[in-house]
């Protein structure tokens, strides 16, 4: 992940570079981020954190994260993206019951009385949830007391403008300008 930091505070710049990448790695979101722009103005205080994701957040179905085949009325599934394994299992248990779902190995699951079409269409991660997780991760990296936040979302770019008390119009304008810059930078790539 490429991190750009705009600030007048030298210590804050160095430490936030490490802090941001460590927190994103801890919460498992670093690999989804292509670029991050952090504007740190502790003297105001105003913080603008903008991230561009590698892909636009979208709902994931079983077909996106597993290979599925049918034998009679039994469906065999091999999970290809382990991150979604708990979600797949949970959704299968809800639909077919624990007795109808057999997990043979870490990645192989057999589902009784099911069809490939039904299993493939199960949503394991919604777009909204995905966005919520990214925004939560960015909030976590921001200073704790900066609770007044506004979020701009456009496709792959999420920008959060945050201050401690009330927003001044220039703060949101500045946030929007950085948001546009990140969106346009994505188009060049």
């Amino acid at each position, binding site marked *: 992940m490429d991190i750009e930091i705009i600030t007048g505070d030298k*210590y804050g710049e160095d430490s936030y570079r*490490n802090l941001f990448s*460590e927190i994103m790695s801890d919460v498992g979101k670093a690999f989804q981020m292509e670029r991050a722009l952090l504007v740190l103005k*502790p003297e105001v*205080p105003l913080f603008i954190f903008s991230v561009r994701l590698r892909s636009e957040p979208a709902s994931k179905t079983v077909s996106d994260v597993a290979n599925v085949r049918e034998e009679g009325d039994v469906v065999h599934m091999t999970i290809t993206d382990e991150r979604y394994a708990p979600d797949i299992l949970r959704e299968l248990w809800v639909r077919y019951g624990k007795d109808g779902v057999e997990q043979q190995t870490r990645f192989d699951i057999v589902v009784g009385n099911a069809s490939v079409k039904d299993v493939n269409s199960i949503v394991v991660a919604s777009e909204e949830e995905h966005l919520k997780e990214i925004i939560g991760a960015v909030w976590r990296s921001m*200073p704790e*007391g900066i609770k007044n936040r506004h979020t701009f979302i456009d496709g792959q770019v999420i920008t959060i403008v945050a201050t401690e008390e009330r927003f001044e119009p220039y703060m949101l304008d500045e946030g929007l300008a950085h948001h546009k810059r990140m969106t346009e930078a994505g188009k060049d790539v």
Partner: protein
Amino acid sequence: MFEVLMYDGGIYRSEELFEFVEDIGGTIIQKTRSSQILTVMMSIPEEDREAMTEFCKELGGEIRAVPLAGTEIAVVGPTLGRHHMPHPICDIAEHLRRQGAITVVMGLARGRGKLTSQINLEEKMIIDEYDAAIFSLGNFKPCVEAKADLFSDVKVPVILVSGPSPDGVEDKCEAIVSGVGRKASRMRTPPEREKLDEIADKVGSVLKDKKRLLDEDPLFVHPAEIKLLLEEYEPVDMCLRPAPVVLHLDGLRVKIGYDEHHADIENMEIYGRRVGDICRLSPSKINDSSIIIKIKTLSEVRQEDLRRAGADDP
């Protein structure tokens, strides 16, 4: 001046060690025996250190200084939220524990933010129960400088730990250690371990100054002597809380209820005097299940004796 040392050795001839400590006018703070291994925390006169080292060598044990033993230190963060915990606050607390101190981690109710951070009177009074307080603040210089007001009214010595080196806060705290701001991972690299050592050294020197001040008008009894007395008191002996009696530089914290037990403690006798006459007992501000004992100084006790004698003999 007294120095706190830790003996690490076997139980072989340990009775002789205890006698030696007594002979040189020291006190045993804590004895921990595990199978044949014995660890003894003791407070002895500074000038007898060499003799004690020689004696311990003779017994086949080792002795080392634990400069923070016999102290209780609060490590305070703006909140207990994940932005400040567990790193670096818990790292600092753990490091000080290894230097012999009892440490307590504390978060303020409304300490977050730059313009909105606050500390209330109750929090200040709780912090004042400890021997010293470490305030761990963040990465931004303006925020650290603005938050210096959090500890400007705290009476116990304050050591400020922050990322950048702040300006204009020198008169609000006893020491400043910069280079430790907000962290998301454990302080385990060599430079970070050095920073932890630096914090422990600063705490040690601040407490040494406090001890020197106390030595100008010494306490009537050493806190460890009151501790020995309290350990024979059944509710303390039966107390299941970790470290039921904690030593402070000028007193103790006893983890039993104030309402039920303060009268019993006040009526105990030491050197022919009531504990209530030579100490001030008060309930802890944290809750009423602990008692804070502050030992009066020699001059205070003498003054009270004179006053009493004057009143009795008109």
